[in-house]
């Protein structure tokens, strides 16, 4: 039915985007693939290049160099074909607040060429009306489909948008920071909802977020840092590349310890205690070099959170 290449729905190859009059590339040689049915999270701080990458994939921005394919179609040269294959959830809700939920759904269906336009819901094809009823049942808002969307909560609006975007059966659902502006409860709720949508519809999901914990359920993640890929793979693979060991030491005579570390050119960071960023197999060798009596010796393992924060904090 849909062309897919080695099970890859999205293929990005050395993608570069430089905005007009900008000194740096907003996206600077990014590579990644998304597999069929995969849940893929694109992580990074604000300004890391997430939205730029997503905008190239949803055809609203053209790349400066490199290429991006969706179901084998080039996003620049075959934009129309790409648009049929993607469902897009923008950072700002793409709903008209003064129109009813059903009207928002109807306009979407017509824009995607699924149904002919009829000015009233009851004149729309039976097939369409059944889908709207299913959609309302999933959302639990059967009565409210005729209400203006402005009466809906933030979480409900997002869910409506997601269901609406499934109408044209996209190969990949692209969500740009879908949880922005939601409280923690609605955020968790939306998350399990997206998981359910993915399971039942079989579509791939690409989403951006700057919260690491939101990406933990993803099959694979890609962390962007200043337009470049800082880490890419499954959570376990990323842990291997980003997480490292360190040694925490302290002495009663800190002045002496500081002098000794400097004299022996052992790099350290001081935040209360002395932190030495060294490999596991170096611990013994380093400890033997130190003469100052130590009061604390603790080998430590940095968490993924620490590693991610180290990348993100550079932006502040």
């Amino acid at each position: 039915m849909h062309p897919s290449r080695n099970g890859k729905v999205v293929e990005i190859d050395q993608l570069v985007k430089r905005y007009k009059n900008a000194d740096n590339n907003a996206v600077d040689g990014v590579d990644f693939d998304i597999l069929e049915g995969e849940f893929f999270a694109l992580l990074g701080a604000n300004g890391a290049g997430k939205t730029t990458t997503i905008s190239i994939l949803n055809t609203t921005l053209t790349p400066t160099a490199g290429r991006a394919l969706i179901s084998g179609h080039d996003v620049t040269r075959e934009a129309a074909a790409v648009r049929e294959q993607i469902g897009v959830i923008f950072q700002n809700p793409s709903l008209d607040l003064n129109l009813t939920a059903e009207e928002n759904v109807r306009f979407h269906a017509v824009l995607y060429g699924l149904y002919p336009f009829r000015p009233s819901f009851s004149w729309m094809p039976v097939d369409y009306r059944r889908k709207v009823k299913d959609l309302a049942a999933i959302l639990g808002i059967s009565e409210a489909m005729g209400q203006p969307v402005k009466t809906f909560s933030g979480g409900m609006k997002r869910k409506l948008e997601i269901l609406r975007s499934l109408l044209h059966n996209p190969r990949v659902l692209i969500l740009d920071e879908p949880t922005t502006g939601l409280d923690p409860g609605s955020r968790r709720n939306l998350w399990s909802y997206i998981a359910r949508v993915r399971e039942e519809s079989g579509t791939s999901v690409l989403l951006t977020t700057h919260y690491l914990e939101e990406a933990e359920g993803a099959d694979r993640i890609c962390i962007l840092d200043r337009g470049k890929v800082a880490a890419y793979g499954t959570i376990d693979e990323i842990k291997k590349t980003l997480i490292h060991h360190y040694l925490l030491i302290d002495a009663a005579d800190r002045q002496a310890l500081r002098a000794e570390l400097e004299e022996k050119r052992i790099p350290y960071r001081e935040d209360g205690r002395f932190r030495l960023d060294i490999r596991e197999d170096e611990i013994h060798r380093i400890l033997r070099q130190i003469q100052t009596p130590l009061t604390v010796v603790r080998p430590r393992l940095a968490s993924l959170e620490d590693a991610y924060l180290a990348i993100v904090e550079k932006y502040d």
Partner: protein
Amino acid sequence: MIEQIASPPIERVGRLSHQVNAVLIIALRDVLKFVRDRPRLLSTFIFPFIFILVLGGTFDASLGQAMGYSYITFVFTGVLAQTTFESTVIGMIYLLEDRENDFSQEMFVSPISRYAIIGGKIAGEAGVAFLQGFVILIFGWLIGVSLTWMQVLLILPVLLISSLFGGGLGLLMLSNFSSRRAATQIFPFFILPQYFLAGVFTPLIGVSEYLRWASYIAPMRYPVDLLRGIFYAGLPEREQVVILEPLANLGLIAVFFVIFLVAGTIIFVRKETNR
């Protein structure tokens, strides 16, 4: 159940009919949004009403006497054309900002032709402008502007022409600005002189040579003059108010509209494929 929502429709819409339907809903959406937004409805009528009642009313006593015809009626006919024209221009420019908000975002990622976006947007904004013109027409009748049924029948199509003409100019402006902020900063300098060069509030007849020439490049002048040519047909003050024959205005509007539309479309589509 989610699977069923994503299932293909029983009968898909044909290719051409898809694009036509898209134009239709983009246009209808603009009109629906306008009609359902009460604060916006109110604010769009305040200015025309102020112009006609306050400006027209205060000047009628002094200027009207000197001119020998109703100044309120003169301003009413000018504002009718000006509002319809300007409303569509502004509506088109708003797309610069709208494309990052609400449902407008969907238009740009959906599989419809960029020409359908242009067509739907012009039709929709012209529809909104036409509705405004219609309400101002009723308002004019309520405050005592004498209108025959024949005049009303002829003015309605002129309102539509004026609205569509604004859409052509709006498209050209939209495709030449990168941001809404830039557009709204330039807009007053662009539109305010036209109020006078188009003779919305003051008759153009008898102005100096250079102003007369400047008025030719003010696009708003043509719908204003066309509307007055229709309204004042057969009335004694026609000679003092109308500059060109309606057919001449109509021809010039058609020429400018095609130029605006073609240039605007070319630039818009080129920009859309290379953002």
